[in-house]
């Protein structure tokens, strides 16, 4: 097994700082010394593919080449980066004339790429490389009685579907159960949060997130757990607008799975980015202290 180069992407350096602050110590605890991919560039996200797919594949090709030079695979915690890098990897390997041209361009600027890099998401690594037993063994403070709604969103489980089901994935639920929490039957787990549409067409974004929040509330979840920066952002930020528009207050914390894992592993609670939550977390702390 190759080592992983950590590819934060722009979000984990911006609004999703708490994802970075929790994923790194958790993976360190599990024996992965993650080093940031040297001089990585933005993956282009969904926007770039809408403008020019060749450009999108080329800028991702630079990242893939950088990782190949380091002899590593890529670990991408952002579902958007994960999908875009994987898509570009596939594009560059499809043997088409366009792909050949892009590879030649990369070679010309000392970024030769031979298709040797795999792109993985931390959840995928937890399931495939680490295993639930090892995770369980690391738990110091099981999150007994904490009801979690595991939200997978879209781009981690679709269209690449090798490690979990595209419609009803279960691996995040399994990880949460391994750290002692109780996953609720969250039937909206792969329903779209709207992605960047929450910023561009407000009406649509508010409605979609309302459905997700309502379902979490109906299942009496204490917290929504996410694996993607944009999902986390949307579900948290939108609660204000939803309260205004639908006259319904939620105040459901939206946290990264790695934050809860760190907590269960007994890592320093103050260094897992909880202070970055906009929704107050005090009910959550009370619940955890009470043990459900």
């Amino acid at each position, binding site marked *: 097994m190759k080592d992983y180069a950590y590819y934060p992407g722009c979000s984990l350096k911006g609004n999703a700082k708490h994802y970075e602050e929790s994923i790194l110590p958790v993976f360190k605890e599990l024996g992965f010394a993650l080093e940031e991919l040297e001089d990585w*560039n933005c993956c282009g996200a969904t*926007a770039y593919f809408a403008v020019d797919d060749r450009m999108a594949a080329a800028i991702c090709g630079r990242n893939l080449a950088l990782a190949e030079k380091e002899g590593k695979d890529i670990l991408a915690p952002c579902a958007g980066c994960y999908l875009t890098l994987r898509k570009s990897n596939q594009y560059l390997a499809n043997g088409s004339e366009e792909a050949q041209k892009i590879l030649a361009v990369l070679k010309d600027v000392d970024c030769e790429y031979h298709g040797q890099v795999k792109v993985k998401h931390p959840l995928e690594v937890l399931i495939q490389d680490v295993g639930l037993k090892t995770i369980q063994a690391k738990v110091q403070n099981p999150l007994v009685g904490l009801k979690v709604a595991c939200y997978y969103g879209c*781009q981690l489980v679709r269209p690449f579907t090798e490690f979990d089901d595209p419609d009803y994935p279960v691996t995040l639920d399994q990880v949460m159960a391994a750290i002692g929490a109780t996953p609720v039957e969250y039937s909206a787990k792969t329903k779209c949060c709207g992605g960047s549409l929450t910023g561009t067409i407000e009406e649509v974004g508010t409605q979609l997130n309302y459905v997700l929040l309502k379902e979490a509330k109906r299942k009496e979840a204490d917290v929504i757990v996410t694996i993607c920066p944009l999902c986390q952002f949307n579900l948290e930020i939108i609660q204000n607008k939803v309260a205004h528009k639908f006259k319904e207050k939620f105040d459901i914390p939206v946290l990264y799975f790695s934050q809860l894992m760190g907590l269960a592993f007994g890592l320093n609670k103050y260094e897992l980015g909880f202070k970055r939550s906009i929704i107050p977390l005090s009910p959550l702390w009370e619940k955890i202290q009470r043990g459900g």
Partner: protein
Amino acid sequence: MEIQRKIKFEGELSRDFLDEIKEMSHCDEIDRCIQCGTCSSSCPMAIYMDYPPRKIIAFVKNGFREEALKSFTIWLCSSCYTCQVRCPAKIKITDVMYALKRKAIQEKVYPGQFTIPVLAREMYRMIAKNGRSSELWLILNLYLKSWNPLGLMKMAPTGISLLKTGRMSFKKEKIKNTSQLQKILKAVKEDGQ
């Protein structure tokens, strides 16, 4: 009310459209569509669309160029890929939507009220210049370039809580080797022309 013909004559259809989109989307299966509607019923955005995804595929298959390119549908697709993984004919519907967006931008026929092409363009410029995107600047540019100061005002409380929690900053992220990235972009652009 003006009386207009609602049906297109065959001669008015765009014969090359299917092949263009097939090539752009790297999806050869478009004309295997059986119009089952699985895509439309899976789509979380379908309720907002002027034409559901099934009709868009039919437009592409049959050469209704303007109808497809001027539709709201392609800009409402959020890339959730639900239709794509469910399609029994294995049509990469999300990729087809991407191809249609690119085509609409190229032919400058997208509906004016959508800021999505603006977001795409601003992000593109930012990456070409700095190699990374800085969220705050991206959002500021998006609202300013789409002439929506009111939207920006409404975002202010959110912005403040993000600044307070250290999740947003005015710092511009930049990579070291911007010249390498710019060379790549330039060469790929020239190749495409």
